[in-house]
Structures are given as structure tokens and as C-alpha cells.
């Protein structure tokens, strides 16, 4: 189990999109069982993985997430019959797209965690946190957010430097 006392140079920001019936309840169980895991994860609750729009994952990365987890009910356990089956196809496709664009899929994890699997929740979250920690910050989207069209640039550090030199 993860030791909270370890100090790291980089603490990744992990965002988890989970369904309320299985994974959220599984995370609750991890709590009631007093299991320990890295504090990096921030959980967003959805009724069902079927509700999770790929745009949310994109937005999470744009907002500075270093890793994203999507987790819901095991196949056949969906509270809404088939929401997780639709999610499974949707994300199978979306991850391929992100990979093609150049996102390292090590930063994007998917899991089925049932309400009884507090231990699995801890494992999934710990694994992703450690993996992303080793990969370092997700700089791609953050850098992109800072970039402007050349024509809209007010003055670049280089220009500033040149001014200063005059």
C-alpha cells in the first residue's frame, strides 16, 4: 500500500469519472474499510458510464489533468442495463483517436470497479497515479493552452529580450 509520507517532486493531478452505482460505491467501500491510496485523485460522479462524454476527458486534460480514469460497473452489472456497454464502445474508439493525435494512452485508464471492490479501486487509482507520476506532467495540452496565433502575440520573451538589448 502506498505510503503517504513519501515526498515526490511531481504530484500528478488525476481526474476520475465514475458511475455512482458501482465505482463510486466501491470508492466509498475503500473509505469505510479505511484503505489508503494516493490523494491525487479527484472524483466526478455520474449516474452511469453511459453519461460520460468523451469531451469531458478532453476537457479534463485541457484543464490540467495529468491522468484520467473512467470507471463503471462490470459488464452485465449496469444499473441501467446497457450504459456501460455503450460506454465501452465509445471509449474504445475515443482512446484510439487520442492516441493518434499523440496522447500517451498511459495517461488514460479504464476500469470496471464494482461496489464490492474497494480494494480494486485502491489498486486502480494507485497504479494510475504511480504510472503518471513516472511519466511526468502532461505538458501537451497545457502548452497548447498558452499558445497564441503569432498575430495575436503581444510580445514574446524573445522580443522582450531583444528590446532589452537595445
Amino acid at each position: 500500500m502506498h505510503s503517504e509520507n513519501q515526498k515526490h517532486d511531481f504530484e500528478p493531478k488525476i481526474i476520475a469519472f465514475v458511475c455512482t452505482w458501482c465505482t463510486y460505491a466501491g470508492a466509498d467501500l475503500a473509505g469505510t474499510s479505511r484503505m489508503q491510496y494516493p490523494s491525487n485523485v479527484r472524483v466526478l460522479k455520474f449516474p452511469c458510464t453511459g453519461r460520460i462524454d468523451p469531451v469531458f476527458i478532453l476537457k479534463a486534460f485541457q484543464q490540467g489533468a495529468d491522468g484520467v480514469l473512467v470507471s463503471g460497473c462490470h459488464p452485465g452489472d449496469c444499473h441501467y442495463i446497457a450504459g456501460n456497454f455503450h460506454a465501452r464502445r465509445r471509449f474504445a474508439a475515443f482512446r484510439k483517436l487520442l492516441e493518434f493525435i499523440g496522447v500517451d494512452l498511459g495517461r488514460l485508464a479504464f476500469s470496471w470497479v464494482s461496489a464490492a471492490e474497494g480494494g480494486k479501486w485502491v489498486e486502480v487509482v494507485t497504479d494510475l497515479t504511480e504510472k503518471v507520476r513516472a511519466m511526468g506532467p502532461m505538458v501537451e495540452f497545457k502548452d497548447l493552452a498558452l499558445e497564441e496565433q503569432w498575430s495575436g502575440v503581444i510580445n514574446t520573451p524573445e522580443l522582450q529580450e531583444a528590446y532589452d538589448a537595445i
Partner: protein
Amino acid sequence: MPLTSQPIDTSIYATITAAIRSEASRLFTAAEVVAIIGYAAARRVGSAQPVIITDAAAAETLIFTEACVNNLAVYLTKAKKEIPKKGKIGIIVKGCDLKALVGLMGESQLKREDLYLIGIPCAGVLASAVQPATTLTTETIASKCCECDVHLPLGCDFVPSVTLPPGPQMESRYSEEIARLEALTPAERWAYWKEQFAKCIKCYACRQICPFCFCEQCLCDRNKPQMVETTPRPAGNTAWHIVRAMHLAGRCAGCAECERVCPMDIPLNLLNRKMAKELKELYDYEAGFEINDKGPLTMFTEKDDQSFIK
């Protein structure tokens, strides 16, 4: 390896032009259609533009040449409110265009019985960057035509009876480029797309020309919430192109209009082809001539691949 440029025989296009003119004329005379969406010559030498004609007299303006690049299916979507949809409409379709029409029927946007399909046996059309007055060769041909498997549209109401001459062997531009990109590292691919998307000016030509972007209110135009940055900055551009590719996944029929019309030459169809390739591998889905009730991302099977899920 690009092959040396070879000419492509388009001599049948003259026969096709004559055939669609007489069929159009017949359709109006017999009052079978109220309008026909086709192509007509424009000012620039060799150029063609979409036209919507409503009488037999105008049938003589219809043409089919290697410059008839447009997918006219876009004019039948809800995005085009200007075109009254009263009565049967005739439309000239290449194989690739027909796939889009079939997709639109599957998405309740069109009904087969409202259309009169004039199919074109097609040897290929020009790519976007070239001038209209260019002869069609293995070099000047549109990339989508290089990997075309629907030279002859099926299930049309009328197809000019011509025999397609055998075409020269062509390179598989998309497959090769996708394979090249797939072989790169994520960082290299990111760098590639970053440079491409940086050019984007959000003119939305890709969206407006796409038969499947028929939403009246695009998600990317909304500001409550702002799902995607609307300004043409690198961040918003990248988000837009990711969302666009995702929304077309499992729907795109491969007409490559998005890529053709991009004034900044962003290879947009690469994204669509990549998604098509993945959906083929994952769910054995391909856009075709059969109207499907559900697309690959609106259905599922219990046995779908989940090797990526822990």
C-alpha cells in the same frame, strides 16, 4: 513509394454528361422530380460547381467531369434549409456520395422514396489543391479516389450505361500515411498534429460541407457550457478537430469533403480514415450501401473488446 504519374481515362464522362442531361430532361418532362441537384460548369476553365435545377430547359447545363468533386448529399441535409423539400428530388451521386446518403437515411435525415438517385460510374475526380483545368492523373487525383472501392454506385434509380475503363494502379495514400503516423511516438504525432491544427482558422468549411454535420446547433458553437474553446487558437483548434473526428466516427462515409475544402490544407480525412480503420478492426463496421438502423457507436454486443479496461 509514389508511382510515376499516369493518365486516368475519363473519356466516359462525356457520355455520362449526355446521359444525365437526357435523364434530367425526361424526369422534368414526366414530372417525376421537382428539382435535380447536379453539377454545372463555372467561369474558370474546367471548373464545376453544384447547381440545383428545376426545369427541363436547365438540364442542358448539367455536366459530369473530373472537376465534379462535391458531395451533393450536403444539400439534402437539414443544414440546408434553403432547399425546399417538396416532392421528389433528383441528385447526382458518385459511389462515395451515395454512402453518405445511405448514412443520412440511417440517421432519419432522408427517406429513400423522396429521392431519385442518378448514379455516376466514376473513374475519379481531382484533388482540391489543383487548378480545375488539370488532367486527371494518378498524381492529380483526389486521395479518396486512390483507395476507392465504389466506382459504381449500387441501388440507384438511373445509372448511365458506360463501361468503366480499367484504371491504373494507385498508391494507398491514406493507409500509408496512417501507417507512417502510427509508427511515430506519441510525442512525434502530437508535434505533427499541433503544426497542422495551428493553421486552422475555424472557418468551419469542414463542418459546413460535411453531410453528417447536420446539427442545427453545433456543440462547438455553444457557450453554456463552452465545451470547446471557440476561438481559433491552437487549444480550441485541437479540441474542435478531436470532437469533430469523434462525432463522425462510425458515421463518416469517406467522401473526404472536409479535407478537400480546408483552405489551410489540414489532412482532416486522415482522422476520419483512422477512426474508420479502428471501427472496422473493433466491430467489423464499414460504411456501405446498406441502410443500417444503428451505427457502430449506437449499438453494442456483450462480447465487445474490453482488453483496454482493467
